[in-house]
């Protein structure tokens, strides 16, 4: 572990799947993740936003080593991820945890909450389990006596708290949260977002917060990356992106945020999200883009840093900038 290295550094991740169309169809290659690089610092949160099928969940699994990238590398605390299934990988899994969308599906219905929170402590042989379970439940806002309860006896918000307590049991340095609030009611979403921010302040873990909801992402993240069809198209500070999104897709997402009392000129995109198996040439967004030019259909724009530090992958967003450096 090198203290100066970022907590998580993923470079040029590519993940392909073969998809067969129909019973005897030819296999088509689908690039779920197509060259994604991201970095998460200790105690900071990176929000990953995009629509279904953009590859954000696959990216989450890749950085946890639950899937092996076809290209690219992931290093955690300065060390490359050990290969999945090895003893070193299992030991490292204690340092990285995942929280899913549906807490009921993530919990075992036949085991009490206390047993499930204690399980990672047993697996990773961490001592004084009873006291630790009590502490963990208190940390996520559950009562210690609720350790005896079964998942169906808790409300949706309490279940997600139990999932968080279990994820935190091994004191992970990195938490990947994949749509952790989407299945919850509005008032409960706010509770869980507050809790995540709170827990991060106390325990200092880095968080990858995957969500389709830009409002939620702004609330919890220090940086935001917007994904479209397997690539990051814009990355920067949440407020900067929300106030002045540079990529036309990011602009659409921001204008689509339903917000009371703010009737803005909404950008209505034409067409449906593209099929990853049938990726458009050039910039994948160009068929839906209101400002696309001929260049956009030919050349894939690289994710480049602008003068203000924002990373944008758009030919037009860089036009006003000084001559871009030659693409590497």
């Amino acid at each position, binding site marked *: 572990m090198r203290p100066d290295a970022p907590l998580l550094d993923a470079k040029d991740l590519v993940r392909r799947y073969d998809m067969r169309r129909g019973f005897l169809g030819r296999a088509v290659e689908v690039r779920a993740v197509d060259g994604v690089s991201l970095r998460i610092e200790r105690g900071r949160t990176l929000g990953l936003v995009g629509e279904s099928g953009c590859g954000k969940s696959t990216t989450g699994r890749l950085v946890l080593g639950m899937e092996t990238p076809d290209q690219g590398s992931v290093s955690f605390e300065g060390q490359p991820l050990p290969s999945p299934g090895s003893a070193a990988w299992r030991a490292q899994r204690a340092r990285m945890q995942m929280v899913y969308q549906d807490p009921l599906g993530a919990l075992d219905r036949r085991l009490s909450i206390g047993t499930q929170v204690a399980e990672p402590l047993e697996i990773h042989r961490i001592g004084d389990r009873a006291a630790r379970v009590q502490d963990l439940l208190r940390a996520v806002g559950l009562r210690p006596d609720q350790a005896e309860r079964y998942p169906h006896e808790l409300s949706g918000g309490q279940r997600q708290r139990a999932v968080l307590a279990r994820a935190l049991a091994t004191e992970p340095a990195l938490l990947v949260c994949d749509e952790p609030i989407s299945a919850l009611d509005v008032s409960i979403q706010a509770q869980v977002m*507050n809790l995540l921010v709170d827990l991060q302040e106390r325990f200092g873990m880095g968080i990858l917060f995957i969500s389709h909801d830009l*409002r939620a992402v702004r609330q919890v993240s220090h940086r935001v990356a917007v994904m479209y069809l397997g690539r990051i198209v814009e990355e920067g500070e949440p407020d900067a992106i929300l106030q002045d999104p540079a990529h036309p897709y990011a602009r659409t997402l921001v204008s*689509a945020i339903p917000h009371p009392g703010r009737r803005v000129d909404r950008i209505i995109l034409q067409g449906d999200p593209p099929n990853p198996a049938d990726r458009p040439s050039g910039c994948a967004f160009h068929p839906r883009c209101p400002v696309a030019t001929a260049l956009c259909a030919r050349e894939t724009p690289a994710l480049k840093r602008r003068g203000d530090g924002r990373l944008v992958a758009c030919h037009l967003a860089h036009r006003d900038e000084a001559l871009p450096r030659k693409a590497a």
Partner: protein
Amino acid sequence: MAEAPLVALDGLTVAFDGQPALRGIDFAVAPGEAVGMVGESGCGKSVTWLAALGLLPARARIGGRVRIGGQDLLGAPAAVLEKVRGGRIAMIFQDPASSLNPVHRIGSQVTEALALHRGMGGAAARAEAKRLLDQVGIPDAARRLDAYPHELSGGQNQRVMIAIALAGRPELLVADEPTTALDVTIQAQILDLLASLRRETGMALVLISHDLGVVAEACERVAVMYAGRIVEEAPVTRLFDAAAHPYTQGLIGALPPIDGPRRPLAAIPGGVPEPWAMPPGCAFAPRCSQRLSACDIAAPPTARMDALHSAACLRAAPALRESVPA
């Protein structure tokens, strides 16, 4: 509401196996207006309209009165209900893929509705089906008539559902979480479509949603529901400027802001009470930060602030508003 209501619910109650799900809903929809019904899961916002249209299973005990243009719907014979459902009131649901029949072509599902409600058949029905698909913005409508639901995207399937709903020329469209299963950019398309259809056809819209933001954009008036009751009703702008019920205030406070400094959200503590453990007084009292001792005694009556704004809260009652410190 100056006009005679199109649909009026009076004291509508629903109970499943003795557990109340709706505890007296009084609500009216005027011709052509767009109203939102907001609340968290289990608050009864969907059950209200399923009950009104006779779509609940037989074990549901329904009480009260539902009228459309003077005609009673509760306990009406099946023949009457079938004319109303799809004819005068159409309903669309959250998941379009499970509402469409996967083994029938889109065209035949639209023409089925045309045959039922407008007695159309053959080439005339097919031409009308194509027009409807055009109207809901499905590109290449003539060819799409022969497609199966799995060949279309989620957003397009929801458009097909809307086309089927429009087939009977309804006076009211009840849309139950119509965009919840869709991506945000597609949600924007569907909300835009609903607004333009309302302008074109003059039909009324009831939009059921858990998302105050969505309702605020698509509707003129909102009813907020909690634990089987309407706790507040107001025009959209009024609701956001001067919410009277602490639950509504809580819902608005729980929305993450899109600008300004980031601070902890004003989350409502606790969770919705279970139907078998309803508090004796106001159902929201156990979570309420402004609770009075009187709140635990009886469910608060609906207090009227003005002709359009009402709230079921003791603190909203005019007599109390002056005497109780904020």
